[in-house]
């Protein structure tokens, strides 16, 4: 399955959830926010949201800034 992840082409296992993706990327759920196809995906939906081919995901976090 081909998706776009943070602007890059990314291949991931079909039928996976957002939580699966975060585990694979070694990211902590509570420290990120995710936009799926331009819409915010609440943390509570990560387990039950399945990624589909062509999805456009943005995963962001807080970094140092002024």
């Amino acid at each position, binding site marked *: 399955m081909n998706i776009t992840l943070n602007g890059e082409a*990314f291949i991931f296992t079909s039928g996976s959830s957002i939580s699966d993706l975060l585990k694979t*990327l070694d990211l902590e759920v509570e*420290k990120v926010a995710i936009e799926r196809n331009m819409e915010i*995906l*609440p943390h509570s939906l990560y387990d039950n949201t399945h990624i589909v081919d062509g999805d456009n995901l943005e995963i*962001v976090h807080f*970094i*140092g800034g*002024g």
Partner: protein
Amino acid sequence: MSAAVEMLNTDNDFFEVAGQRFTSRLLVGTGKYKDFTETKKAIEASGAEIVTVAVRRVNIHAGKGEMLQDYVDPKKYTYLPNTAGCFTAEDAIRTLRLAREAGGWNLVKLEVLGDKTTLYPDMEETLRAAKVLLDDGFDVMVYCTDDPIAAKKLEDMGCCAIMPLAAPIGSGLGIQNPLNIELIIRQSSVPVLVDAGVGTASDAAVAMELGCDGVLMNTAIAEAKDPIRMARAMKLAIQAGREAYLAGRMPKKGYADASSPSQGLIK
């Protein structure tokens, strides 16, 4: 630390933003430090309670690694997500909605920039973004030009703090238009914080002497030769400026006025 400085810290002097009280009038950014350890130490030395943070894509190739939160605890400090780098209202709104989901809080700093050379705020876009964010339930602290009319519009819309620039972001030039800052302070009933352009401790003191509720800075501390020492200097300058403002300065005179009595002089 001296007893006098400690005494100031415990003063019952605070400002309030979106129902939260803050006693430190120095707000600091968390960017431009050489590493997270320096970030942590500088923020501790500054005494800040509010720290600004940016929202950026995670590095999908790097894994979690060390994160800002591991060094600057969001339970101890109020994280104020910003929209630095956003040049349209849409980008700023999108960024802050993500920030709200990442952090779980509504208090944000809105800035919409108009130009990459000056990083000057685009007030048309800022006003547009502020309206959408306020309607969406955000508590908006807003970075703006030092134009009193624009500042008034932002306050009337419902922004919870007005944050005019002292000088362009990262320039370190100090307050370029003290008259405008003073006009904004006088007209505003929400906190006014000078944001951006402070270079050294005296600039921060001047801002506070004008009657600002606080000062937000990043580069002045992070790019000092000794950032931790500068953080301490800024803390003291903010306190000194605030005390001077509350004390009420003497009037300026166009003539000399001797301090020692003229009576009883030996002849």
